């Protein structure tokens, strides 16, 4: 189902000592977005950026201050959650502790009234179908306390899916799991989403999670949408400094730099020659994989140490113009066999270098000469 968010805004009344004027806090600010049918969308941002509020607005647990929400063209802004047909998976799963797995999954079905009312057998079939989908068919008699975190997560997804929702919403679905289970479960979410083809929106603060399974990611900060796009596009083409910094591990390396006569200078060195960029000071962002080890490269750093990671080597070095304490560059293991001395020289891949306005942080497009 297609979801359209139109100028969605949510303000909370201001409170607290630091906020003497009682100004409203804007959690979500003018969010407009069209989510195509059957896609998996990741809402990504640091904590407090409004991503969970956005999810609650779509779910119907909170009412927007302004703006509208459309499900397949139908305005659902003022509808209650159950009338919207959404399934929600909560961060701590919210499984009812006194009910066993089967009763938990069946709970939403027992709420159906009138024409939708199901017989006992139909309910049983639906519960078994949902449980089978998330592969917990053999755990139906257990209580939630007797399940591992990953199993609880699956039960919670089954409970959200059993009523055949039009939209599946997941709030930080992986944050309560350990690292290994997280990898496994995110594949699982992807698989279930593909199989059911339900439009799915999930919230996360972990960029790896969002990048790895989403069709589209929405990067948010302070209630404002920073960028929307396919994960690779957003990574390759960050709209601003925040997005560039937020995506990627290891994070992007940032330098103070300036453009002079078509040359990009970091420190005293000209690292790239550019076309059509007026002279100005800039922030320069270089992805770790944008460095090439080269004897006659144009960018010189002081070598700290290489960190061996197996397939690749991460070279840790220092540069006076760097905004981070160290620079991390990732290169092939073979190319750094003869790494020695105090300094290391790099050539740069222009596609991995981004320029940002020093005042606004907006991206400055450039072409290399």
């Amino acid at each position: 189902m297609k979801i359209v968010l139109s100028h969605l805004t949510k303000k909370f009344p201001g409170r607290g000592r630091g906020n003497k004027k009682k100004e409203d806090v804007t959690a979500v600010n003018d969010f407009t977005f069209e989510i195509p049918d059957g896609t998996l969308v990741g809402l990504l941002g640091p904590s407090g950026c409004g991503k969970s509020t956005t999810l609650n607005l779509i779910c119907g647990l909170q009412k927007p201050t302004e703006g509208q929400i459309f499900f397949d063209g139908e305005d659902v802004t003022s509808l209650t959650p159950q009338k919207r047909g959404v399934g929600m998976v909560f961060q701590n799963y919210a499984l009812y502790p006194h009910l066993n797995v089967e009763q938990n999954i069946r709970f939403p079905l027992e709420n159906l009234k009138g024409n939708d009312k199901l017989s006992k057998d139909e309910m049983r079939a639906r519960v078994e179908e949902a449980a089978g989908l998330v592969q917990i068919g053999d755990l139906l008699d257990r209580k939630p306390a007797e399940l591992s975190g990953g199993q609880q997560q699956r039960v919670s997804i089954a409970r959200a899916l059993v009523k055949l929702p039009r939209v599946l919403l997941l709030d930080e679905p992986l944050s309560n799991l350990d690292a290994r289970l997280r990898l496994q479960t995110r594949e699982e979410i992807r698989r279930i989403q593909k199989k059911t083809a339900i439009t799915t929106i999930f919230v996360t603060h972990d960029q790896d999670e969002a990048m790895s399974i989403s069709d589209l990611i929405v990067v948010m900060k302070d209630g404002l949408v920073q960028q929307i796009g396919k994960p690779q596009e957003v990574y390759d083409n960050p709209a601003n400094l925040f997005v560039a910094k937020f995506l990627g591990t290891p994070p992007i390396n940032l330098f103070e730099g300036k453009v002079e006569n078509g040359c990009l200078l970091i420190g005293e060195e000209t690292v790239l020659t550019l076309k059509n960029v007026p002279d100005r000071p800039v922030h320069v962002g270089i992805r770790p994989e944008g460095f090439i080890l080269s004897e006659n490269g144009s960018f010189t750093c002081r070598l700290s140490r290489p960190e061996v990671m197996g397939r690749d080597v991460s070279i840790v070095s220092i540069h006076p113009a760097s905004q981070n304490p160290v620079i991390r560059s990732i290169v092939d293991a073979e190319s750094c066999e003869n790494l020695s001395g105090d300094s290391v020289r790099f050539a740069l891949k222009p596609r991995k270098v981004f320029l940002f306005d020093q005042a606004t942080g907006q991206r400055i497009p450039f072409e290399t000469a």
Partner: protein
Amino acid sequence: MENQNNKGWLYLLPALLFLGAFMIYPLIDVFIYSFEEGYNSASQTFYGMGGYNYSYVLHDAYFLQALKNTFILVIITVPLSTGLALLISVALSSIKPLQELFQTVFFLPYVTNTLAVGLVFMILFKKTPYSDGLVNLLIRCFGGGSVDFIEGPYWAKMFVLCFYTVWVVMPFKILILTSALAGVNPVYYNAARVDGTGRTRMFFKITLPMISPMLFYLIITGFIGAFKAYSDAVALFGTNLNAAGMNTIVGYVYDMLYRDSGGYPSYASAAAIILFTIVLTITCINLLVSRKHVHYH
């Protein structure tokens, strides 16, 4: 390991001594007393051991009256006070403005002096040469005849006693239940709302099971407390409860020990053991029932 065990017992020793001296020894002593026939408190002698004390107590009209009164009191006040407290707590936790004010108002009886409460009930119910009591005024407003609640018919007196008991025990229950309700994670209600759960179903399927341990605690202590009722009856009807026909089992035990007819520790012990057996049975039944319906997490 053996050494560890000894150490553990050593730590427990002070508490065990205390319990032994003030709980277990008296309990056994009472049990023995209850079988000593013809005990004379002046000479501290008795004829022999047997079940006569029990037989006497169980055939004593005053005891049977006390037994009946106590059972009526328990059966009426425990469900009523717990149910009302639950209703009030749910109402309290679903309102936002003035919540704290109402909480204070409902808790006031708990910190109010028993004598002051007795006085208030006097004003409400007692007939004096000058006034018929507030409740009678109200009854007459609606066209009924006036009733003497303190010295009148049995049902009127029982009504006042139950009313008083419910009123006195409710604040504590409200306090416990409001905090139990506040302890339910709101995410469960959100999850239920998303699934379209109605309010009634939410209450019975989520709220009630979540607070069931606290509710169960209140029911058990409520039963025990109501079986031990005595001072409330004294506050309302004076010390001669047998004459008023409003005695309770504990009142009967007290009378046998100390009041003008007193000096019968054997009868008192037998009555106490009977009460103990009743409370034990009821508590066991409670525990059995709770296994199915109380959910500890």
